[in-house]
């Protein structure tokens, strides 16, 4: 027999169950969905640390959008990883280590979002970067798919203590360089074999090494030209010859060691100079076994006129089209390129933000006053040459590497032959 009490009890249960069911069904529908963005950073310690700092502060201020930082997966080069990710459609929402010259491949694949489609793009970019830098970021179709972010202008680092001990000054021309190199190349034990050299340019034939030996020399010698002209021919064969001959002379005279890859000889104090970007400042301070003073000067040139130009080693930020949250991704990209974020980047990585008139920006003046070495790179940042934006850039640098090996390193062919071969290769590159 059903009593009133039992009926009330049963109805209460039904009401509770119905409420729970409604809660389960309706709450997610009205609640704000949580968004997670994946952000790939370059895998070196400084940049990872910067990325994590930015993500942490963003996450604290934006509880509805979490940014997860991941280092770009290990491989031969970041470009290979990114291309593989594009093919597999496993790209992150945002990547902050894009070599501008491979961007057109991503654009043709529809793998990246056009950033100039965002309403505030013009205002944001105009405030931060100059027209020349933005023009370089523009793709073949006239749209902008990348935010110019930072540069690592390559300069000539020298061991101040070693230079003082040998009584030499930092070289500005090839002739001065060879004089200095002669003094820096010696055996530290009497009658022993040579164990100190002037510099050790890369002995690897992997393509990207040429961006850090031949290309800065070429950029300086050509007074700021890229490798290719508009017709995809060698833009300045004379400068290319000069750069290759300089490297060949260094190897031939024994100023550059021709050994297999080994630990960083500059760090060990066994070479007096090396080409390096601003990232090298924190690296040298952190990794040097025996502390030594170091300084930086522009890349030497063949002529008496001091060089102004060098390779930019620029890296940009892009949003991949696999993202399901383009607006949030764009908001985060803006967040990591604010003036405050650029200051953090500079402080944590010593890398140079691509910011309009950086050296004279009052927000950075205090930092540069206390870090004159970084300031030298920032000044150099106004005179940089990027890589050519061509889908064949890897093949071209690979071919150039083999000519460098044959002519500069081993002297099998004359340097001018190596450059002539490269020029000829450029005419044949579209083989099929």
């Amino acid at each position: 027999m059903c009593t009133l009490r039992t009926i009330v009890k049963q109805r209460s249960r039904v009401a509770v169950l119905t409420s729970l069911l409604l809660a389960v069904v309706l709450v997610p529908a009205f609640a704000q969905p949580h968004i997670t963005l994946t952000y790939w950073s370059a895998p070196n310690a400084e940049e990872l640390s910067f990325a994590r700092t930015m993500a942490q502060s963003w996450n604290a201020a934006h509880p509805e959008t979490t940014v997860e930082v991941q280092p770009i997966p290990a491989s031969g080069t970041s470009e290979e990883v990114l291309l593989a990710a594009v093919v597999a459609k496993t790209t992150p929402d945002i990547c902050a280590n894009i070599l501008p010259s491979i961007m057109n491949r991503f654009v043709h694949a529809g793998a990246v979002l056009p950033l100039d489609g965002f309403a505030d793009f013009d205002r944001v970019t105009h405030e931060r970067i100059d027209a020349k830098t933005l023009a370089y970021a523009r793709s073949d179709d006239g749209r902008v798919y990348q935010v110019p972010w930072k540069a690592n202008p390559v300069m000539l680092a020298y061991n101040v203590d070693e230079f003082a001990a040998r009584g030499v000054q930092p070289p500005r021309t090839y002739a001065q360089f060879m004089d200095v190199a002669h003094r820096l190349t010696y055996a530290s034990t009497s009658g022993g074999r040579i164990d100190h050299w002037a510099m050790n340019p890369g002995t690897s034939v992997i393509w990207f090494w040429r961006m850090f030996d031949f290309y800065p020399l070429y950029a300086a010698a050509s007074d700021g030209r890229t490798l290719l002209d508009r017709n995809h021919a060698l833009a300045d064969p004379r400068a290319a010859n000069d750069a290759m001959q300089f490297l060949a002379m260094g190897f031939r005279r024994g100023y550059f060691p021709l050994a297999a890859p080994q630990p960083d000889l500059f760090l060990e104090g066994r070479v007096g100079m090396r080409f390096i970007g601003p990232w090298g400042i924190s690296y040298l301070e952190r990794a040097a076994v025996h502390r030594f003073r170091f300084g930086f000067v522009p890349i030497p040139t063949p002529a008496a006129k001091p060089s102004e130009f060098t390779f930019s080693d620029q890296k940009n930020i892009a949003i991949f089209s696999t993202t399901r949250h383009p607006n949030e991704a764009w908001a985060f990209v803006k967040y990591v390129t604010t003036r405050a974020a650029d200051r953090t980047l500079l402080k944590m990585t010593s890398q140079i933000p691509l910011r309009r008139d950086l050296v004279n920006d009052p927000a950075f003046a205090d930092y540069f006053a206390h870090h004159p070495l970084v300031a030298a790179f920032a000044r150099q940042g106004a005179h940089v040459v990027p890589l050519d934006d061509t889908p064949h850039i890897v093949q071209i640098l690979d071919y150039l590497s083999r000519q460098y090996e044959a002519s500069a390193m081993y002297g099998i062919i004359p340097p001018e032959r190596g450059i002539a071969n490269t020029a000829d290769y450029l005419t044949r590159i579209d083989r099929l």
Partner: protein
Amino acid sequence: MRVRGTNVGLLFSLPYLVFIALFIVYPVGFALYLVFVRWDLIAAPQYVGLGNLRYLLSDAEFWQALLNTLIFLCVNVPLQIVAALLIAIALAQPIALRGFFRAAFFVPVVISVAVVSLLWQQVYNTDTGLLNTLIRAIGLPAVPWLTNPHVAMPAIAGMVAWKNVGLYVLFFLSGILSVPAQLYEAAKLEGASPWDEFWLVTVPLVRPAMFLVVVLSTIAGFNLFIEPYVMTGGGPLDSTLSVVLYMYKHAFSFLDMGYAATIGVALAAIMLVVVTIERRLIDEPTV
């Protein structure tokens, strides 16, 4: 009844057939298709007819890579066979610490190739490497192991032989231990010297193991990749550029999948010819 039996057989074979279709038939078919296209993985493939094959025939770098690989094989395969056979014969004798030595020779086999390559890169270092330190200690000049185009590939071949010899020792050892002891006793009674025993008893009876070792080391040699990739990047002057490293470069550095597939198909065909010749020469029926 018979039909039913056939169906059941097919059913049991199905997982393997699916495996074969997915991992052998499809990739091989796709590679053959790629031979006729230009494809950068991103844009749609473009049909180029026999363009890739024509380019292969005129590509001096490919032929250089093939020559390098053959040089590697010429050094590596005989070195491995002789070393493995001698070590196996020694380890078949009742020597002290035999178990330890059998394990010790096998240790390099289980170490990662990349790790071994990095290790030997240091061993071969011209200025600071262990090998040149020893060479200098006896008054000889240092050898530029990895930076001399004439020495680099044989140096890599030697390192690979060191790494893999333990595996081939195992094959030879099992062959030697399966030779009936009576045959050696009979040979002794006939007045055979130790050399005769080796040449007339051991060698013929380990021929199946010999064939296996030759074929496996030939195939491994043709697939040479990690060692030059890690140690030399294919240099100096392309002297350690193997066919697979060249194929990798086209596939993943240049994103030229069609040409990379062409190199792969050509390599497979060359391997087939070489292994067939080896089989004719070695794998004659034993008595």
